[in-house]
């Protein structure tokens, strides 16, 4: 019996262009021979519980808390609903704006420099040089070193008088050496320096793996055409690294703008408030001042801000990728 005949008889539905079983799958969610769905749920249950307990519930709690005034100690009975007051207060809070500027400065300088250092290292370590494997590992180590060790080590290295860095600079007869973490002018640059040191290994690793995939035939063609190293980099390497760069830009920006441990360990937000970023301000507001509702509002505003910047980066990359 032809398909046309079947339809004319009104005995069957028109054929699904995706194949004979597609409709069945859509309606039941599984093939008739699949095991019961409960098994699938059991497999993902540990992760699902983790996401529920450590992501979903905290997220919803923070959203709800941002509309309240609560000091934790007073228990659920002490929660006062204040509507949008916390958000209004956030936008009128000079410390919030100051922390925002510091966060933008911190991430805005640290992220591009981390990318530049990571890329430079990757280009160098992608060449056939002695002890290449060892060097690759060495540059990655700072990324996995414990944050406490990083804090203590750099505190010693950047000690204004006894630190190795200033002693080294002193060899060149330099006067008025930077006071690093003991100066409200130098503390942020010092923090950026340490951040680049600790994150460049990660950028280096990702760039290295991207460089391995670079189209070798294009380089050969470029060489035959007489292109130099810079021309090859500009015309072949950089465009092929663009998606990786955007990925690193986004992940590093999100990670660095949320840096907390290093600030808490090394500067505690100071001197003055020179290294009080938004994430550290959130910590102060909640765990030092016990204003959890307000801290939640700061957190949400920060989240929305970072998310918006992330989206902008993503959209900019998409346009560029199409253009290329």
């Amino acid at each position, binding site marked *: 019996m032809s398909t046309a005949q079947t339809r004319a008889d009104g005995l069957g539905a028109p054929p699904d262009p995706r194949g004979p079983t597609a409709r069945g799958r859509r309606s039941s969610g599984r093939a008739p021979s699949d095991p019961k769905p409960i098994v699938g749920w059991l497999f993902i249950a540990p992760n699902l519980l983790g996401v*529920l*307990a450590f992501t979903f*519930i905290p997220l*919803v*709690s923070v959203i*709800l*808390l941002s*509309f*309240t*005034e609560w*000091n*934790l*100690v*007073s*228990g*659920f*009975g*002490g*929660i*006062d*609903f204040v*509507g949008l007051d916390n958000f209004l*207060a956030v936008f009128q809070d000079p410390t919030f704006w100051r922390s925002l500027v510091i966060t933008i400065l911190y991430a805005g300088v640290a992220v591009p420099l981390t990318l530049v250092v990571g890329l430079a290292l990757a280009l160098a370590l992608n060449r056939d040089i002695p002890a290449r494997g060892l060097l690759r590992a060495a540059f990655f180590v700072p990324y996995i070193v414990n944050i406490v060790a990083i804090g203590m080590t750099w*505190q010693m290295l*950047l*000690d*204004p*008088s006894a630190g190795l860095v200033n002693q080294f600079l002193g060899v060149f007869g330099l006067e008025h050496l930077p*006071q*690093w*973490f*003991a*100066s*409200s*002018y130098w503390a942020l640059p010092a923090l950026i320096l340490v951040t680049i040191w600790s994150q460049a290994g990660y950028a280096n690793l990702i760039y290295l793996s991207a460089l391995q995939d670079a189209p070798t035939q294009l380089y050969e063609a470029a060489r035959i055409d007489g292109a130099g190293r810079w021309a090859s980099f500009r015309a072949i390497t950089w465009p092929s690294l663009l998606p990786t760069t955007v990925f690193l830009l986004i992940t590093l920006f999100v990670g660095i703008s949320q840096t907390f441990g290093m600030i808490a360990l090394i500067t*505690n937000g*100071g*001197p*003055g*408030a020179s290294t009080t970023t938004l994430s550290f301000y959130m910590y*102060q507001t909640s*765990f*030092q*001042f*016990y204003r959890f509702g307000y801290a939640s509002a700061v957190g949400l505003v920060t989240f929305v801000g970072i998310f918006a910047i992330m989206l902008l980066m993503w959209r900019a990359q998409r346009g560029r990728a199409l253009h290329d």
Partner: protein
Amino acid sequence: MLPARSRRPSRRQFVGALGAVAGGAAVSGCSSEPEKDMDTLHVWGGIPAESGPQRLIDRFHEKHPDLTVEYTRYINDDRGNLKLNTALQGGVDIDVFFTYGVPNLTMRVSSGLAADVGDQVRSTPELAMFLDTDDPKALIDGDEITALATTRIPQMVLFNESLRERAGIDLPRQWTFEEYLEVIRALAADGKYGSYVIPDLARIELGPNYRFTPEGDSNFSHPAFQRHLDLSAELIRDGVLYPWSQALARQLEAYQQNNFIAEDFGLWTTAPYSLRFLTDQEEYPHDFTVSAAPVPTTENGDWNTGEYGAFVQINSRSPKQELAWEFSKFWLLEGAQDLISAGYISLLGDVDDEQLLAGILGEDAEQFFDVDSFRRTLFEDEPRMHLDTELTAYTEITQKFEQQRDVCWLLERSPTKAIETVDRNAQALIERFEED
């Protein structure tokens, strides 16, 4: 159409939603509280058990063999206090707890965590001092008393005797701030500094609640605050005070004893709890003796910069209120001797000054200290101490002050500008918190 207000969720609805979300994390069956052992008291405090509380508890056991007291030590820092707050809120079996510092005190009291012991205090004649509202040693609100200070924490000025004698300075018994400044200038020589910081000039002049005017506004425009920053900056610039850049870079605020032991500065303003470092020759070896002098005075005031502290409080949710009070009373009236070695000078108790001195300075007192000078400074001079009771935005204002103090003492900002900023910020905080 509903009025705008009625469309907002009520507090009850909102709290219900929040509770539902939080409750989602709870495993079923956790909601029913375990039955509490009514013969066991749980006490949380900041002193290590072996430094005195365990001896006190052992003596309490002798007196009450049918009861058991379990002591839990928490570290008195941000994390430790968060741990205690969470435990109190989470329904952990805590009957008696100790609070250090007024910000924590107010928060716990205003949140209803501390039981009112006003009636018990009024019915115990030996505790009459806690009813004094002119020189408060308890948190009193009308008839309600929710915290009792257990100790005096007077400040004193310690001298490195070797450096003092080398500088040819007489050990002062009463001295003015000007004389104090002459002394630290004389001590600053041969790569040594005079002192770590100077005593809080504004506190000496103004005493309790010094950050607030009688009307409750910011008092940072009082000249004493600026003079304190000004003098300190000048002395740091002159190399008389320990460089603040070093203090910040090496995070020395909590480790000043290391630099005093290392003879970096000859004079150190501190409290009795620091004396334990000076008797510990293994961890803090040194070959100089130490003498004590009172905190200097100004023509405008003679307040000691020390305070009443270590407040005992009873958990308002404890089902063992009577036992908890029995233990708190024992700690206040009979526990003084046990806590001396922790540097605690009890407000009450049958311990005379000589016993206190022997306890605080340790067995080999003569080896480490000029004992007479400590006797005079800690007991005979009867230092005037304070308890702040005006606590609006206390922690926030403290932070604002410390931020400006830091940049001022790093010589990056003028004291005038720093204090103007503190005053403006403090006033804004007071207004904002009073609105709330």
